[in-house]
Structure formats: C-alpha cells, structure tokens
C-alpha cells in the first residue's frame, strides 16, 4: 500500500519535485497600437501566472526589439544547456502569424520565426513533453511540422487558412488566473483546463457576435491534464509547524487514494463507488479542517 501511495504521489504532483518548469513568453509584432496593447496585456497576464508555478527566475519574456530570431535561438540554446531530462519547457507565442501554403512565420522584428525553427527549438530541449502554445493567426499550420508524440501543442487555428487575427490568445491568457477555469478545484490550472476554458470562450465570443467562427483551437499530445501552468491563490505545500507538515502529507496521500479510486471506478457499483469516495473525501476534508485550525492557532488532536 505504501509503495502504491508513493507511486500515486508521483502521478498526482503535476511537475515532479525535482523537475523544474521553464517558461518562455514571446510577444510578436502587433502592427498597430490596438494589437500592441492587447499582446502586451496577454504577455503580462501569462508572465504573472507563470511565476506562480515556475518562479520568477525561470520565466523569460521577449518583446519589442528583444524578440528577434537571433535572440530567441540563443536563449533556447542557452536554456537547453541548463535543463535536465526531467525539466519541462512551456513556450508561449503571442502575436500575428502567416502561412504562404508552405511555410508558417511568426511575426517578430527582423527575420521571422518559422515552423521549422519551432520544430528545431523543441527538438533541441532535453527530455520530452514540452509545451508550445501558439496563439497567432494561421498557427494551425505548424501542426504538420511540429507535432510529435513527445510534445504538447496548442494552436489558435485549425490550419493555415484561418488567417484572421485571433481571439484565442486573450482567453488563454485569462484562463491562467481564472478560478472558473480550475475545473477540478485543485488551485492549479493545467494545460487541459486552460485550453477547455479558452476554447469555450472563443466559441461563445463568435456566437455572441453572430459571426461564423474564423478560428478553431487545436490541442495535440498526451498528459496535458497533468501539466500545470499556473497556481491560483496560496498554495500550501509545507509549513514550519511539523504538525501541519504531517497533515499536509496525509492529505496528499488521501488525494492520491481518491485519484486511484477514480481510476478504478468501473470496478464498483455506483453506490459502492460513491460511498468509498465520500469516505475518502470526508477524511481529506477533516484533515484540511485540522490544517486550517492549526494555521489559525487552534490546537487540534492531529495524529
């Protein structure tokens, strides 16, 4: 049972304790003041949200004159040296893109970043399951070149023919600090949650405008439900109080048991499943209550 708990803990914790998340945010050219302002706001939202998960030091942003192909290639080259096999990279491209039928280009000052560049950048990073979200117009055209089983990709459009400026980026950026996007209420936003939120908001946007949707977001890859991008509010992971630490560990174990039960729900009748689930969550709730009480200075009998 203890072995199972350890294994489940590893599954449950989105980014392994020793693994680190690196985030690179690239803001491309807006072309006019309105788009410049929108992209800047999105960059800021993503940056703030990413810091909650990766820490300030591992979040890099490129915008304006800094966002050149040369700088970006140098950045990824340098960072790949620092990353371990367990580390993961999240790359955000915010801006306009174009597709001429053969090549995709993300618009930045000087030479653009192409789909081939993106493929090379992702390929150069150690480890696997790195994440790239491209919110630009025509971004769906990179899927052919960049898609691979070991990568998680999100694009704002279905293909290169969807060339209108997109709405997806704004909603994706918003999702990272939006409680409504946190479907499982674990105070973190996973790739899946962010995508589901943004995809729905895009559909609602076009519906409320009475327009045919000119973009259809896409997601590719595996395990995007367990890849967390941002944390919401305070995240309790440890405490100076050993009693609280003990309770936090106990809660993690219970959460792992709950996840295990959910994975095996087909083995039970519905009533039996609910009964077991209720018992585990009740126990977890009691532990949380004890943590809160200790945090508030109330003594509890924690075992």
């Amino acid at each position, binding site marked *: 049972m203890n072995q199972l708990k350890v294994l489940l803990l590893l599954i449950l914790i989105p980014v392994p304790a020793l693994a680190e998340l690196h985030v690179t945010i690239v803001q491309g050219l807006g072309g006019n003041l309105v788009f410049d302002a929108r992209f800047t706001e999105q960059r800021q939202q993503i940056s703030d949200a990413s810091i909650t998960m990766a820490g300030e030091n591992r979040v890099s942003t490129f915008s304006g004159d800094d966002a050149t192909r040369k700088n970006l290639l140098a950045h990824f080259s340098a960072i790949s040296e620092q990353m371990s096999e367990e580390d993961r990279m999240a790359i955000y491209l915010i801006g306009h893109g174009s597709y001429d039928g053969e090549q995709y280009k993300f618009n930045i000052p000087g030479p653009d970043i192409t789909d081939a560049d993106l493929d090379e950048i992702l390929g150069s990073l150690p480890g696997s399951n790195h994440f790239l979200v491209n919110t630009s117009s025509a971004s769906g055209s990179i899927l052919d070149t960049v898609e691979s089983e070991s990568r998680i990709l999100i694009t704002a459009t279905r293909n290169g023919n969807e060339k209108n400026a997109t709405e997806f980026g704004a909603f994706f950026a918003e999702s990272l600090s939006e409680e409504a996007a946190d*479907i499982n209420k674990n105070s973190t936003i996973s790739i899946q949650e962010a995508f589901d939120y943004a995809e729905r908001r895009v559909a609602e946007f076009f519906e409320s405008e009475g327009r045919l949707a000119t973009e259809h977001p896409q997601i590719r890859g595996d395990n995007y439900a367990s890849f967390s991008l941002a944390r919401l509010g305070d995240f309790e992971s440890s405490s100076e109080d050993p009693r609280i630490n003990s309770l936090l560990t106990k809660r993690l174990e219970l959460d792992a048991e709950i996840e295990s039960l959910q994975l095996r729900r087909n083995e039970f009748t519905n009533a039996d499943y609910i009964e077991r*689930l209720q018992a585990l969550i009740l126990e977890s709730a009691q532990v*949380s209550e004890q943590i809160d009480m200790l945090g508030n200075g109330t003594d509890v009998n924690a075992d």
Partner: protein
Amino acid sequence: MLTRMRILHATYRAALAVLLLVLPLSKVLARGHLYGALDNEELLACEDLFWNGQSAQAAACYNRLYSPEQPPLVRAEALWARGNLQGANSQFQLAIEASPDDPIVRVRWGELFMDTYQFSEAYTLFAEALELDPANAWGHIGAASALSEGGDPEVLNQHLNAVMHEDLGLAEGARLRAMIMVIRSLLRDDRYEQAQLSLDEAFEWAEEHALPLMELNALQASHAFMMRQDYQPFIEASLQEAPNYGDAWFIPGYFATVIRRYKEAVDFFSEAVSLQPNHWEAQVYLGQNLLRLNRINEAIAHINTSYEGNAFNPMTVNLMRLLDNFTSDFVSISYPDPPEGPLPELILRLGQDEKAVLDKYARQLSEDSIAVYKERYRLDPKEPIIVEIYPNHEDFIVRSIGMPGVGLLGVTFGYLFAMDSPTAHPEQKYHWGTTLWHEMAHVFTLGVTENLVPRWVSEGISVFEEWRTGPIPGRKIPTDVLQAMAEDKFLPIAKLDDGFMRPEYSGQVIVSYMQSGLVFEFIDLEYGFDKIVDMLYMFNDGLSPVEAIEKSLGISDSDFDRHFKQFIDIEYGPLLGSLPVWMEDMNASYSALREEQWEEAAAAAERAIFTYPEYVEVDSPYIVLARANKELGNADAEFEALQSFWKNGGYLPNALLALADHYLEQENNPLAEEVLEDANWADPFLEELHVKLGDLYIETNRPELAIEEFEVLLALDPLDKAAANYRLANAWYALDNAEKSMEYLMTALDIAPQYRPAQKLLLELSRISN
C-alpha cells in the same frame, strides 16, 4: 441542353418508380388543363374522358396512345398523364429531335418541369420556345408561370402583358390562363373588387371561346369564401363540369390559408383529397394546415402520402425533414399539470435539449401574458394555447410556411404559435420574451375575431401590447422607421394593409408594423383602450377597418389620418427635425469607440442621448457611453449610463449583467434581481446570469428559487460543473433536504475532490447525520 437532360434523368430515376407504384391502373395523374395548347384529336379525346370524370376510360385511352404510331409528343403526353414522368421526359427528348423548330414541344416539356417544381429549367425551355417563335402565347404564359415562382416580376409582367394585350394568334386558352394568373394574384393581395372584375371578364372570355370554366368557378368560390359569401354553388358548378376536379376544393382551400382561415382550409383540402387522393399538393397542404391546428398525427399521415406520391415537391420534402426533428427532438409539457378542467390551458413544445432552460421562463411569460390578455380582450381561450419554440430558425420557418429562407421570428395560426428560440439568434439582438408576448397577443386578436382580424390590426395590437404590457415596456422605433416618418411614408389607415401585403420599398413591412403599433397607441391615448377592444369585436361582424374606426370612434378615416398625423408630429416632430444631427452624433460616437478615443466617444454618445433618450436598440448610445466610461475608469458614469439604458427598455444581455454587478456592489439586491430577471427574457442561455441570480436568491434566503436557477445553469452544461453542482447542493441544504444536497455534493466532489467549499459542506452534512 445535355447537362439539363442528365440532371433530369438523375433526378427522376429514384422518384419515378414510386410514382408508378402509387398510381393504380385505372387512375390518371392530375395535370393542369391543356386549355387548347395541343390539338391532337386522339389526345383531346383522352383528356375529355379524364375531365368528364371517366378515369378508368381515360387511363385506357392514354395507354392506347402510347404506341409507336403516335408522334413522340403525344406519347410524352400520354405517359405524363399516366404518371410516368421519366418516360414522358424521354419522349419529349425524342419529340425535340423530331420537331426541333416546333415551339409547342418545348412549351409542353417546360410544363412537365413545372409539374416537378424545377422552375428554372422550365423557364429555360419556355424561353427557348419564344426564341423559335417570339409571339407564342403558350411560351409567354409558361414563362410567366415559371417566373411567378420567384423570378423577376418585371419580366413576368412583360410575358403576362404579351398574352393579355398583344395579338398572339388563336391562343384564347393562353389568354384565359393569363387572366387566371392575374385573378390569383389579386385574391392573394386582398383586392377583391378588382378580382371580381377580372373574374367577370374571364368568364365572358371563356364562354365566348368555349373554354373550360372549372378553374374560374373554383376561383369564384374562393372569392366568395374570402368575402364571407356562399361559395358552394361555384364549387358545385366546377364539379359539374369536371367531377374529379380536386382543385375545385383545393383552390378555395389555398385562399383560405391566405386569409389565415386554417380550420376552413383543412375542410377544403380534406374534400380535395377525398375527391382526388392523388392530388399530392392538396395532401401536403392538408398536412401543413393540420400541423397548424396541432393535429399532428393526421398531418404526418397526409405529408407522408404526399411524399410517397410526389417526392419532387420541396414543401413536402421540407416538411418531412421537419417532422423528423419534430417527432424526435421536441417535447411537450402541459400546464397546469394535471389540468384543472378537461384540457390544459397551456402546452409548451420545446426542443428536447432546451426544455430544462426554457420551460420555466416560457411558462411564466405565457401564463403572465394569457392572464393580461384574458382581461384586456375579454376572452377566455376555448382551447389550450400551444407555444412552439424552435432552436433552429429554418425548422421554424418550414413549420410556419413550408419553405425556408424567410426572416420571421414568430407566426401565430390561432391557438397555436411557433417562434424562434433565443438559440436560433445567438447574436443577442433577439428578445425572445417580446416575441412570445407579441405572438400571444395574436392568439387573442385572432380568437376574438375567429381569425377575421385584418393583418395590420392584429400586428398593430401585438406591437402596442409589446410596448404597453410586454416584458420590456416602452416604444422601440428602429432608425429606418424614424427615417420613413421623416419622409412622410406612413400610409393612410385605409391602405395600411398594403404595407404588409404589397410593400413598395425595402423595409416597408417593418415601417408598417411600427405605424400600426402607433395607431393603437394613438387610439388608446385619445379614445381609451376600450375602444380598441370594441373595434376588434366589430371584425366578427365583417366590418372593414375603416368601418370599424368610423363606428367605434365616430370619425371618418380621413379625419383619423389627419389626427394621427398630428399625434405623430407632436410625439416625434422635434426628434425628426434633429434626426440628421442625432445620426451624426451616433456615427461620431461609434467612430471614436472604434479608435478607442474614449472621451470623444462619451461626449458624442451624450449628445445623441440628449436628442433621443428613448433609443435603446442594440446600437444605443447608452452602450457607447457605458463602455467609454468604463475605459476611462469612471464607474459611476458607467453605472448611470447602464441604468438609463435599462430603465428606457434596453435589453442587451451583457449590458444588463454589467448593470446587475453595479447594483450588487451597491448592495441593492432588489434592483439587481429585477435586472437579472429581465435579462432572462433576452437570453436565458447565459450561464453567468443564472449564477448571479441563483446566488442572489440564496443570499436573500429563497433557496427554492435558487434551485430553479442552478438547475438551469446545470442544464447549460457549464464549464465549471463542480461549482454548479455545489451551488445546487448548497441550495438544497438551505432547504433542509440533506439527501438531495448530498447527491449534488458528491457529483461536485467527484469532479473536484479538493474543492474546499464542497468539502466543508460535506463535513457539515456528515455531522448532521451523526
């Protein structure tokens, strides 16, 4: 030509087998009378047998005609009469090869296309016939018939005029057909006097040239019916001439639908199909009108029969498709449940997927409007009122008129009306609550007058009720109607129906709606509401609107027009004078908004509001002002703009949600609640609306109302299902129902096991149970 033939063959292959199967050996397909278009004596002998009611003999006669000795044209006619359209088509091709320069072959082939609803192909053939012989009257009348199905009216008139006024040889029958087209058009347009003159002229012409009278008699019967006179002798005269002539009943039935007398139409169509079961058009019209009377199963049977007999009719095909959805995707709910008398008062027919969202609100609005109208119009409905709400606009249109592509929002047939759901118009410009209120008023004006109310009166009262008693009271006059007012385009009262029936410019129908509404505003303000009701009841006695006005108001129609004009001048004169300035300010505000020049946008919007403060359509300057002030960080001014928008009857759902937030921040729960409830009449499919309203009900200790809102929320399949289920658990907990609370709570926790508020509720529930 090759392409057309290939298309024809391909289209016919599947359907013709069915056609042949359903025509018994002794039966002949109902075709239009030749009226002298062909002169082959053997063919005419068969035709005579058919029209004399000797079907079996006619069938045998046509069978004999299909012989190698006969020319291909005659063989084509014989096969066509026997229902073998594919064979007829092949024979027409041979006939063209045999007589390439004979226009009548192309004309008759064109008529075959007309019978299969391929009007464009038919027109091409008539045009080809006219290229061979520009003076061919049959070509002209064929072309006019084809164009009457949606072609250029000017060209149609040219063809019709050619037959009516030019010397086109000895084609007297073609001229009679042209006269019949004109009579039909006059009857459709309610021009009864002119129609009678044309009928008299046509009878004289037909008698002078020994042409058949049966169609004219059917039209005369229609005229008599529309004039509330005895029509039976004309039908009898028609049937005396042609005992199997289903059109003797079908034609009056068709005109009964034109004046919305659906029950009588069903009676006419029933007689038509009883006399001539293979009158496939009568079968589908019967089906369509039975649907209008809510006799669904009978309707399905007749539409199926029509389809089996003639799968070419687009109306039949559309109705078949609709019925597929209708039977599988709709659900009926009756209120009260169980009924307090022998029948329920209200039946809602809603899309299966929308029932959970619309049921509550549609019921509330229907019951409220019924209560209001019962009292105002002194009428207790004799039957259950049926409200059908369609998620798919095209389905609604097909249900209403049989064919898609028309921009209506609701149609009332009597005690049943159909309308679009808010989901049919997701762009937030559609206020479904007002549509329901409008249509329900028709139920009462049609009910009071047994469907005899003139169109403009019924529409005018419905618009008036929208403004007076509807969910968002207040006059809402679109800009183009103001423009029409400024250009003095309102019609005299005696001609107001023309604005609906025969619009002369784009947008005249909507102008006529608004004028009719204003007419009743005027009558109400000047003479009192009772006069409106008195006037309405007068239509039962067959009075015209002018007579009703004279009798109820004691004023001539010309005096009425003069007083109404004064009313409009007083109410709108100042605004109309400054309309150009208002439009400039509107344009300036939107232009500044697009450029994100917030201060300029706000200033221009304020000027526009000053000129016309009641303008609350979706492009209202209040919206611009609110947005600009929001961007400028001026929350108070944003709130004021939104509040004025709402208080003037504005309904844009997102604006109402934003206003509700302001009220909630100000802890003004009663107004927040009122605004949110109003938003439901605009778009109940907004998740946020039900979250806010439900939370508000919880806060004000009304969990039973909160449960209704949260159930709607859950039905909307929200992204955040855990929160929706938790809200329901919490509301049930507030109602002391631990079992229901636990049910929703465990659903929430299954989705989100670490959801702290839900965990806390679980702790509370477990402590209670212990």
